[in-house]
């Protein structure tokens, strides 16, 4: 299993062609208290870089983009019911959705943990 990151501060954890997507700890820190999350329904086809989910904090609304293309297999109802999971466990229980990758080559566009850490440090 490998974890990849985007410049929009999403993470994607990949196991074969199954992937789980969420927002990073850096992102939740920037957002502040998350009060609303909308996740895509199972069966929805996502394209890399397209709008996939919505996350809103007290201050602002943000879109979450699909880090990779694929078909959604599950949206996380737990994070819809308890949006503060995004703050308390962004890279664990606070995941947004799972999908089946349609093109694993897209992963090469993403950053690894070390690259992402360096990217955040540069912001």
């Amino acid at each position: 299993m490998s974890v990849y990151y985007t410049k929009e501060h999403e993470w994607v954890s990949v196991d074969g062609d199954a992937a789980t997507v969420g927002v990073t700890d850096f992102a939740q820190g920037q957002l502040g208290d998350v009060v609303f999350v909308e996740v895509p329904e199972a069966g929805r086809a996502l394209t890399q870089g397209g709008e996939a989910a919505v996350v809103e904090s007290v201050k602002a609304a943000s879109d979450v983009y699909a880090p990779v293309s694929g078909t959604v297999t599950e949206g996380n109802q737990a994070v819809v019911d308890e949006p503060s999971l995004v703050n308390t466990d962004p890279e664990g229980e606070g995941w947004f959705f799972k999908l089946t990758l349609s093109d694993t080559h897209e992963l090469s566009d993403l950053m690894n943990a070390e690259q992402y850490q360096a990217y955040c440090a540069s912001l």
Partner: protein
Amino acid sequence: MTESEKTLPLDGWHRARGGRMVPFAGYQMPVQYEGIIAEHLWTRTSAGLFDVSHMGQLLIAGPEAQKGLESLLPADLSSLQDGRLRYSLLLNVDGGIIDDLMVTRRGDHFYLVVNGATKFGDIEYFEAKLPRGAVLDHMREQALLALQGPKAVDALSRLVPGVAALTFMTGAAFEIGGAKAWISRSGYTGEDGFEISILARDAVAVADLLAAQPEVKPIGLGARDSLRLEAGLPLYGHDLDHGTTPIEAGLAFAVSKQRRAGGGFAGWHRIIKEVADGPIRKRVGLLIEGRQPVREGAMVVDAEGNEVGKVTSGGFSPSLEAPIAMAYVPLASAAAGTRISLAARGKIFNGTVTAMPFVPHRYHRKGAQA
């Protein structure tokens, strides 16, 4: 930080306490420390310390100070006693709001607190319009702190004996930690609390003293906004602007009865007509269904989807744990209980007009039970 963003006296103080600094009103200011919801709820249950030194503090003195101010503000200043504050509005000739402000009679002069983002424009306007017998002084050397919440009086009384005797919308001169201070019982959260005007050079020492009290935590701009929204208090530049009148904004209380008849202030003709006939639109509070906040800029739409109004403030209420908003709607839709449709982010949201404040005010009014 850009060069045009100036620093305030407590800039380093906020940074040392983990304040996340953002550009605001031309300054760098803390938007939050530990988190907006925690800071919000702390203020509602204990006491929050806010740095509002970006706001403009003005003195207007001279033999024609009262007359000059009354030509611009719809307030009856002749009835404003020494040491009393009044909420008022700086109006343009069309009755539009240039700024909202607090005016206090302090002996032979008036002390005004105006918004930070509008202060330089206000000063220009005052200087252009005030008669020669009224002199304006911008108190650039003053800082301003607000201590807000049900335990503010406990914390401040420990440092400033006698301050508990102030009632809502009164003020007096005190000393805090040896520093001269003008303290009023007022604020922008709906809670009991105080606003403390001190010299900028004393700001760090006074902020340290206040923050050392067990009831007190520093609070950022984020919670200041969510607190005032729950309290139903409008924010200039969002809920009020040059194109809105006091009557549309639901601020008729700031147009004194005496002045309605007599006039003699900017915008009187339009305002008096709106008082008689009703305004075209009105600022209302909205409870939004579901959990998703509806933000400033969202459209109020009618059954056919036509835009008939606009959301001017919106967010998540930490006290109610639900989204709330302020919007301008047609007068026919302004009654409490009216269902309102809103369009935002490609979706339709449903809301219900509700009386404001969303969360009851808890001011320490004269004559009220403690």
